[in-house]
């Protein structure tokens, strides 16, 4: 005697329901949405030179609103020579989404990349790789 397909499908559906329920929150959306990313922009205050430089940073949320109080990390690297900077910049929160990093130290001439990452209180992150030619 062949099994009837309808009860089998119903049983399978019943088993699947808890899995679906675990995967969705009450309104049916994904329970762990990808955090919306922050937008990071940065510019050096003057032409990059060997030595200590200052970097102005601005952080905004997905709606374009400035993000104050974020944790901002600045890491200058010289990938083509296989080393980073001799100093770790200190980042100051100026308010209204503005931050300033000093010293951004380039200890030699050549192509550098300044990695800037920002994380706000809600866990949203943003990053920027700023290419800098030190002449």
């Amino acid at each position, binding site marked *: 005697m062949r099994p009837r397909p309808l009860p089998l499908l119903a049983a399978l559906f019943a088993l699947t329901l808890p899995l679906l329920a675990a995967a969705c929150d009450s309104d049916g959306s994904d329970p762990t949405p990808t955090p919306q990313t922050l937008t990071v922009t940065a510019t050096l205050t003057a032409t990059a*030179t060997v*030595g200590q430089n200052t970097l102005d940073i601005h952080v905004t949320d997905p709606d374009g609103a400035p993000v104050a109080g974020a944790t901002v990390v600045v890491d200058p690297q010289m990938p083509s020579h296989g080393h980073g900077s001799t100093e770790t910049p200190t980042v100051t929160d100026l308010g209204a989404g503005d931050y300033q990093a000093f010293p951004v130290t380039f200890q030699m001439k050549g*192509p550098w990349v300044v990695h800037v990452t920002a994380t706000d209180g809600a866990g949203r992150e943003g990053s920027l790789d700023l290419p800098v030619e030190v002449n």
Partner: protein
Amino acid sequence: MRPHRASLAAAATLLAAVAAPAAAHAAACCMSATAFGAGRLLIWEDFAVGLRTSVSPALGDWDQAGRWRPYRDYADLEWRTELWGMAALSRRASAFARVPWLVNRRASQGATPIDDLGTGLADVSAGLRYELLAVGEYVELPAVALTATVTAPTGRATHDATTPLGVDVTGRGAWVASAGLSLERTHLPWYARLDLGVSIPLPAHRPDVDATQRYGVELSAVAAGGAELSRDLVLSLVTRASWQAPLTLAGRSIEGSDRADLGLGLAASWRLTPNWTAQAALDTGLFLDGLGDNHPGRITTTLGLRYGHF
């Protein structure tokens, strides 16, 4: 291969071909042993020790596209002093060691002018040399020697620097294993020498990015020819070429991190007494587009004193 790399490779091949001792007829002497660099033991020596000091100002650098860019408002000077020694282990084998000390000065007239001086022990190396064919062993054949060298990261790497311009950086932070082949032919008063080498840096952890980095394999060639102008004075013309493969960080090759270098030098060796030899050398990069890649260009003046015991 980028065009300037092709020209570098062609130039290196040409230099090697020109300097190859094809026309040499006899291997009569060992005058090139002390002609430049640490050299080797004379065949009658038990050991030799020496001190060399080199001053190398950088005049500019080649960018990743091989363009030469003179420095402006920036000074970079390296003063390297090296104590070295070598000792015979047998008729064919010898051991050597080099202990370099580095003084760096860098000055920048940037937004925040800095003029820094730093110093420290650089990367120490030691190795073995084995003479497959000694000078004069066979009249028809050049002398042939193999070398194996290990360089230890005894210098301070960039991630341990404490000065803004990194003048206290004296090492690369990685072990390096090297092998070399040296060919030498003498036909008095002339000699020619060709040194070929390969250096293999080992992986090293970079704490600043918490990743493993490995510098690229480096190939080098040094071709030298010279003449014994008098019984005790040898003058040499030295050409060199090197190329380093791109480095890898966390297993990923870093584009544009390969390096190339060509140079030209003069060296003089003057035997003051049977035991003491004075050495002087001048080495320069070729400061033109396409004759270097991704490194500073320097002029190096070297003075040295060598004592050979027998």
